[in-house]
């Protein structure tokens, strides 16, 4: 009886492992496909089609054009600076708000609760923001990437709140007996003690900010404040409509591609190289940050 069972078990394990391997291949293959074809020779692609496993002829041509391009360089800088500024300030401002909110004897708590929940469930819509940003004169400026993103939203407040409430009261008591102000308590005790939740939410903010392109699409017009994501989007849109028209890349290529490279044959590999470049920071930090991601979701799921 037990022998039959273990045999059955073994078969189950083999099938299970095979299924997992297949799923892992499917999820990682698109990224692999992108990387190998960005390193592929453009003429080889024209001749044999896109590479499936390894580049047919390795060429760094498109990478060289991409890294030399000043527009991409600037877009990279804007995205990076914006991500750092928003992540740091948003985490601190949101945590500060949440700390005050977590106090049971806070006066005017009702006011904060009402604006918090209203801001969470109601939304004025894209148009209202467009009008507001124009009136504030931040439309089509770098500020539109920063100012509206400095508060992490009430949902994050709730997550912080749960964590702050878990800090033992005795710590606050002893600090207060020593005459510490709330500022000292927050920055010297609460903030360091909440490192797990702060890093988890911080990473989510950083990834979201790095990947965001809608802020650029909706609220800017000038080419010189484009983010990397948006730059990628315009390249994709240009080449996708050309491909859909059935034209060759050279005929359909828009000016955005001609500014990067003068030789028409490698537009597609250039697009792929840009894609790898914009995903690269995330792929590099991902293995290190992964444990925080998971913790962050757990933190979110336990909120009452």
């Amino acid at each position, binding site marked *: 009886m037990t022998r039959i069972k273990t045999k059955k078990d073994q078969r189950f394990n083999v099938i299970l492992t095979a299924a997992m391997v297949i799923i892992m291949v499917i999820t990682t293959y698109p990224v692999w496909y992108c990387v190998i074809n960005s390193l592929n020779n453009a003429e080889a692609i024209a001749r044999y089609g896109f590479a499936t496993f390894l580049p047919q002829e390795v060429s760094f041509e498109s990478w060289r054009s991409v890294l030399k391009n000043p527009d991409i360089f600037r877009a990279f800088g804007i995205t990076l600076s914006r991500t750092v500024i928003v992540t740091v300030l948003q985490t601190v401002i949101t945590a500060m708000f949440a700390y*005050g909110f977590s106090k049971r004897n806070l006066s005017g708590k009702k006011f904060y609760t009402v604006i918090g929940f*209203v*801001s969470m469930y109601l939304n*004025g819509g894209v148009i209202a923001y467009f*009008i*507001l940003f124009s009136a504030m004169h931040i439309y089509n400026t770098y500020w539109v990437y920063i100012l509206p993103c400095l508060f992490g939203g009430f949902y994050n407040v709730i997550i912080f709140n749960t964590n702050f409430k878990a800090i033992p009261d005795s710590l606050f008591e002893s600090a207060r007996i020593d005459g510490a102000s709330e500022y000292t308590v927050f920055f010297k005790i609460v903030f360091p003690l909440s490192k797990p939740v702060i890093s988890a939410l911080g990473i989510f903010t950083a990834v979201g900010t790095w*990947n965001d392109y809608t802020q650029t699409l909706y609220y800017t017009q000038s080419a010189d404040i484009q983010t990397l994501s948006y730059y990628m*989007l315009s390249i*994709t849109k240009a080449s996708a409509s050309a491909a859909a028209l059935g034209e060759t890349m050279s005929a359909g290529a828009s000016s955005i591609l001609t500014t990067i490279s003068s030789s028409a044959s490698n537009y597609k590999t250039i697009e792929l190289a840009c894609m790898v470049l914009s995903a690269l920071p995330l792929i590099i930090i991902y293995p290190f940050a992964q444990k925080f991601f998971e913790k962050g979701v757990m933190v979110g799921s336990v909120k009452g």
Partner: protein
Amino acid sequence: MNKKRKRTSISGNKAMQFQLHTLMLPGTILMLVFSIVPLYGLLLAFKNYKVTEGILGVFTSPWYGFQNFKVIFGNSDFGNMLVNTLGINLIGNVINILAAITFSLLINEIARPRFKSFVQTITYMPHFISWVVFGSIVITMLNADGGFFNLLLQKLGLIKDPIVFMAQPGYFWMIAILSNLVKELGWSTILYTAAISGVDQELYEAAELDGASRIQKMTRITLPCIKGTIMIMIIFAVAGIMNNNFDQIYVLQNSFNLPRSQVIDTYIYKVGLQELQFGMAAAVNIFKSALALILLTAANFISNKLTDSGLF
């Protein structure tokens, strides 16, 4: 002694309240300016507002009644757009939720913890890549000129001439749904995995003594135990049924597949920010939010009735 402590705590309390409020001040101002003030946008749906009127024009522009709504519902594209929104979301959510539950049950069956966390790490990865990049990869793989899928189908002898997937509206739903599945499958298991790890191990031991097979343990123990989590995910899916993933749809959309790829969110962008018909865009937004609220309440009510577990 007692009196003294009380006095210090009152004066201390005043200082403490002040300090707490100053800590909350930046967040409060940001919330008021960027979340509460823009709610005037809801007014725009009932106004005849022109771009040139500026922010005060929102309040001074003439009332328009339900004229904006009438124009939208009268638009022949509107029905089509609604079908696309609901179709992509309904089919996509059903497939996603079923796949995520199955996948998390399978992950739970992996005996070696290191292989288990390896599988999780690998399959979560695409979630963190932006839709711009992931969508562009999908478009490249579907390329008619030697893209992965056309090469594969030709090698298998299933097609002779390459298919221009992105230019044919008929393929759009499938592309949107499947690309989302590949990108989010791993990540969407996280909450189920958390719920599964909370199941009482004694239940499994008892079942083993009764001779239950692995499949039986999955369907008879694990599934019923994570019922609450599944219901909450379904409620969220129902509530979000009017929200397409703008980031995804906009990247994959082009003028050729528009009949099947125009959804409410992309329509708001087109009408509002490209054609500057603010009133109409605001009206679509209100329609969408109202429907979402009704659906959320209904889904929660049904869930409470059927399974005793709901959001509120």
